């Protein structure tokens, strides 16, 4: 078909089978999907976004707007993949998209006939009213019609890695400039990373015919790559796109490890997202050719001239047997010459310049323009208007178009760089403040000759290393093509009413830009939003320049004044999987397991996530049909005899130093200076604005040694806060902090038999009697014949209770021992639900009450805030706004019918008051069923709640529909005077 008999960098000895829209084809190793399809005579590869126009390949690289296909099936199905960069492999399954029922006959091609209605701003103008139609009618229709490929709803079966690389010099792009830079820095011994998005390094050297010294460009590139590969200080990252330039020399890059395989090897990632820390970087990203807009310039077969010769030279494929070239610069002539050299019939060069140079072997039509094209599913002919005004048709199968080349400035503009216009090449070049440490070399800087690019690459590397205090020498670089750029800017063929495309992907035509201008959307950013020019997967790599030029023409400004839109990462589309890395599914975040986890699993516990912790929520027993049954039993068993709960998750901070007590005195709003050794005290921490931050206990193990506990959720934040106080506020206090949360396995042993149980565990020399170890005592003890332990007589449940801690490795064994020893008391393990029920019954505040909006006064602990000392938050907790008599106070609630449920989050209202914010009296924070009281109970915040005990109110939740009559009571439902604690 269209495969040329010789040439190209393909392995003709391999034959790779692939399918496109279900039809089988063959290609070779080294092909892309696009080159293989062209070789098989397939020009039609997709349908356009809006008008569903037949489209073929425009480019030979990642800038491709048209040839977007869907690759693979099932969970690996990936839409909107550019055929021009999809490396061919045996068994590749590709499909076209945005066409139904098929590419050749697409029902929505009707949109093309309706194009007069589908101009810029169509949505904004058409779907205005009635408003109710939006959700029901317009949006579903638009959503069905919009978009290109379809995403799979299957889980992605592949893994993605994230990794970190460090280098002296990052070189982005392995064309002539990048290779010269890498060779220079690599030979100098610097740590170099060379990244290129192609699977074969060399850039344009692989697609051009001019020699470097006595070698072909491709051979020279291969030789340099081989040398670089042999250097241990150089890392070559092929198939790697540098996506973004971030602060201080940090770059993101995605390496496509396995996209050229049917599926990744076992255990290997599909892609790796690299974070690259670079000392310096050289951007050698080359240049991207731009098209010229003319009527019906979007037919399959019309492509960029540089891409056309890339297909011929690198892949030995011609898009058609007879072609022509439409250009405004000398580079277009190269395409004609290269194709003729490969035996392709070039019908003519249509050159917009009146002074176009001649070209051996082909007619050059100087001052001519292509004014139209024909061919429903692929180019059949073009109409050329010659300088003298005569028009005639040329029958050709493909047209190469060159409007000049744009330096690829994207990465240079990801920070504060703003491109500047260069008249000499009629294009924007990098300008403004480039990302820290970045230089640009070669075509990306507008240095379009090969010789210039080589020299610039080497020079940039020498400069970069010199900045880093290293010396390097330029390698001997071969003689290479050093032609000048000769271009006369020409953007679009005027004088036509037909549509001339600027942005192929988004179907934006010259008319749309004209319309945007008429309607006042003249700034480039407005132009982009109004017309969608430059949006979507290609981000306008081939289209932005044309749009700007047309707008500049319309406004009478220069292109430089018109400016460009912002360039933002990522440079090309990235799979979300690559951004997520390994943090998916059950590995979304690490899991923290308690010391008794394995034991709890054996008991059949149901687990709940508490932050990263997995905690036993309750322990269902045979015959129990619902969680409430288990929880009620656990509560009753604990209050009736003894229960055990793993409370290791509470944050523990070791506080030592001569000033430890004075430090805690400033951290907690209540006093700690006088706490005796061997005693524990409850402490409330405030934020500096007077709001409660966290609570816990502090146990004084020695004069200069405390152990502070925090809530599970706030452990990290409290530690940070205490370090802030220690380092920033009181830098000369002698106090040292370290977290010991993980170091101790800690269990609550609660219930009237808890002492009896512990007496069987704790070594006999330690007196656990009420006198020997009273409520709020603490001490270092041993258990089980000598295992070091800590014992605290504290109670969250309201019962006689202890917390016992042993080194973490013995936690599992201690839990099992407690269960064994407790058998005579019918000891019952309890989970977080029962823990929660008992603390609500006791009226202890927890996370629901310490919710970042409440003060000590709200919590009923106003008198705890000492005014005899300076502590964090004390001053602002006393400010007027927080002292209102009518302010919220924590109280308890009981439904007037015990079995009526009260819902946490319900709002409190006077009986009979309408459910409106204006009538709000407060809200319920925690609620549960109390098996102890045989009633639902709740605690919450009520305006002047302390004065309203006995009143009957409504607790209504507009969210759940619950509306319950409740009586205001003390929040201490169980043992309000604390007799049990002290028993």
């Amino acid at each position, binding site marked *: 078909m269209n495969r040329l008999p010789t040439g190209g960098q393909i392995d003709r000895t391999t034959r790779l089978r692939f399918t496109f829209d279900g039809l089988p084809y063959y290609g070779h190793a080294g092909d892309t999907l696009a080159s293989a399809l062209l070789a098989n005579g397939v020009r039609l590869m997709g349908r356009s976004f809006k008008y569903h126009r037949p489209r073929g390949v425009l480019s030979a690289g990642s800038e491709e707007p048209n040839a977007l296909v869907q690759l693979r099936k099932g969970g690996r199905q990936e839409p909107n993949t550019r055929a021009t960069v999809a490396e061919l492999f045996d068994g590749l399954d590709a499909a076209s998209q945005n066409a139904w029922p098929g590419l050749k006959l697409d029902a929505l091609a009707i949109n093309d006939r309706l194009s007069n209605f589908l101009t810029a701003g169509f949505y904004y103008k058409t779907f205005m009213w009635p408003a109710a139609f939006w959700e029901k009618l317009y949006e579903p229709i638009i959503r069905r019609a919009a978009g290109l490929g379809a995403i799979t709803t299957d889980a992605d079966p592949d893994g993605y890695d994230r990794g970190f690389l460090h280098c002296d010099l990052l070189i982005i792009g392995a064309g002539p400039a990048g290779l010269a830079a890498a060779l220079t820095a690599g030979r100098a011994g610097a740590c170099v990373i060379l990244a290129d998005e192609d699977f074969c390094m060399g850039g344009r050297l692989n697609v051009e015919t001019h020699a470097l010294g006595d070698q072909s460009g491709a051979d020279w590139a291969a030789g340099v790559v081989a040398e670089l590969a042999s250097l241990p200080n150089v890392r070559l990252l092929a198939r790697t796109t540098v996506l973004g330039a971030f602060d201080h020399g940090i770059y993101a890059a995605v390496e496509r490890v396995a996209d050229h395989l049917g599926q990744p090897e076992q255990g290997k990632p599909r892609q790796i997202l690299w974070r690259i820390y670079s000392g310096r970087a050289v951007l050698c990203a080359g240049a991207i050719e731009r098209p010229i807009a003319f009527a019906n310039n979007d037919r399959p077969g019309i492509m960029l001239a540089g891409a056309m010769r890339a297909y011929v030279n690198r892949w030995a494929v011609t898009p058609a047997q007879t072609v022509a070239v439409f250009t405004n610069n000398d580079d277009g002539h190269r395409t004609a010459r290269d194709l003729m050299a490969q035996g392709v019939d070039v019908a003519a060069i249509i050159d917009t310049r009146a002074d176009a140079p001649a070209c051996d072997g082909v007619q050059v039509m100087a001052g001519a323009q292509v004014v139209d094209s024909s061919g429903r599913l692929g180019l059949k002919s073009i109409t050329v208007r010659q300088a003298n005004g005569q028009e005639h048709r040329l029958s050709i199968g493909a047209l190469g178009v060159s409007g000049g080349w744009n330096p690829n400035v994207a990465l240079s503009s990801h920070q504060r760089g703003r491109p500047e216009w260069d008249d000499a090449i009629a294009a924007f070049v990098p300008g403004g403040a480039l990302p820290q440490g970045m230089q640009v070399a070669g075509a990306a800087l507008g240095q379009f000759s090969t010789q210039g690019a080589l020299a610039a690459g080497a020079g940039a590397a020498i400069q970069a290393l010199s900045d880093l205090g290293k010396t390097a020498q330029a390698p001997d670089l071969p003689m290479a093509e050093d032609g000048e750029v000769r271009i006369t800017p020409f953007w679009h063929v005027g004088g036509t009413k037909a549509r001339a495309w600027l942005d192929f992907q988004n179907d934006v035509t010259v008319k749309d830009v004209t319309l945007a201008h008429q309607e006042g959307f003249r700034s480039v950013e407005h132009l982009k939003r109004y017309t969608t020019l430059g949006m979507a997967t290609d981000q306008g790599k081939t289209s932005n320049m044309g749009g700007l030029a047309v707008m500049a023409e319309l406004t009478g400004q220069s292109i430089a004044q018109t400016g460009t839109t912002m360039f933002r990462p990522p440079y090309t589309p990235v799979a979300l999987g690559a951004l997520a890395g390994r943090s998916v599914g059950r590995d979304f975040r690490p899991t923290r397991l308690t010391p008794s986890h394995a034991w709890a699993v054996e008991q059949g516990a149901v687990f709940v996530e508490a932050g990263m912790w997995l905690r036993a929520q309750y322990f269902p027993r045979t015959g129990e049909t619902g969680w409430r049954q288990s929880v009620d039993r656990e509560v009753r068993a604990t209050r009736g005899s003894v229960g055990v709960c793993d409370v290791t998750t509470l944050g523990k901070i070791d506080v030592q130093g001569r000033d430890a007590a004075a430090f805690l005195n400033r951290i907690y709003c209540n006093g700690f200076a006088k706490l005796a050794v061997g005693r524990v005290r409850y402490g409330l921490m405030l934020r500096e604005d007077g709001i409660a931050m966290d609570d816990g206990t502090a146990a004084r193990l020695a004069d200069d040694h405390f152990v502070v506990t925090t809530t599970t959720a706030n452990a990290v934040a409290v530690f940070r806060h205490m*370090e802030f106080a220690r380092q920033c506020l009181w830098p000369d206090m002698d106090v040292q902090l370290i977290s010991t949360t993980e170091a101790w396995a800690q269990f609550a042993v609660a219930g009237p038999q808890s002492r009896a149980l512990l007496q069987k565990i704790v070594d006999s020399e330690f007196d656990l009697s009420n006198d020997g170890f009273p409520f709020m005592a603490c001490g270092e003890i041993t258990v089980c014949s000598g295992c070091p332990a800590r014992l605290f007589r504290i109670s969250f449940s309201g019962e006689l209770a202890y917390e016992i801690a042993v080194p973490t490795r013995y936690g599992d064994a201690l839990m099992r021992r407690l269960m064994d020893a407790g058998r005579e008391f019918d000891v019952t393990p309890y989970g977080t639900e029962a823990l929660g029920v008992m603390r609500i019954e006791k009226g202890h505040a927890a996370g629901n009450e310490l919710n970042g909006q409440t003060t000590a006064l709200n919590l009923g602990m106003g008198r705890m805030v000492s005014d005899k000392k300076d502590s964090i938050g004390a001053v602002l907790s006393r400010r007027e706004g927080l002292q209102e008599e009518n302010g919220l106070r924590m109280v308890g609630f009981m439904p007037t019918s015990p079995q009526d449920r009260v819902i946490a989050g319900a709002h409190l209202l006077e009986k009979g008051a309408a459910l409106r914010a204006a009538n709000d009296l407060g809200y319920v924070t925690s609620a549960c069923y109390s098996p102890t009281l045989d009633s639902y109970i709740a605690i919450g915040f009520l305006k002047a709640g302390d004065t309203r005990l006995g009143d009957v109110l409504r607790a209504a939740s507009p969210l759940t529909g619950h509306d319950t009559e409740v009586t205001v009571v003390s929040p201490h439902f169980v043992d309000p005077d604390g007799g049990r604690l002290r028993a």
Partner: protein
Amino acid sequence: MIINHPLLGPCDAQEFTYLGDARLIDRPDGMAGDAEDAFYHYAYLRDNPAGEHRELWFHEQGDRSWLVVTRNTVTHQITSVELARDVARKQGRGV
């Protein structure tokens, strides 16, 4: 961003937790007569400059030191990094 830690050298800003204006070091005396007014200013009134800003960063995934980082909020250029403890002492917060 890279923060050049005074002890550890260049570190990725991702290792840090951000707090804000370094004036939070200047906590007023809670027992002073004008404490309420002083704390109102301390807790609520802060500048939010487009430009150079002294800020507190906590090296949570590193050595747990609080740093005072002078950073241009527009360009992200970092011109100085100090241990907050040293700054606090220099500002007379030591004994």
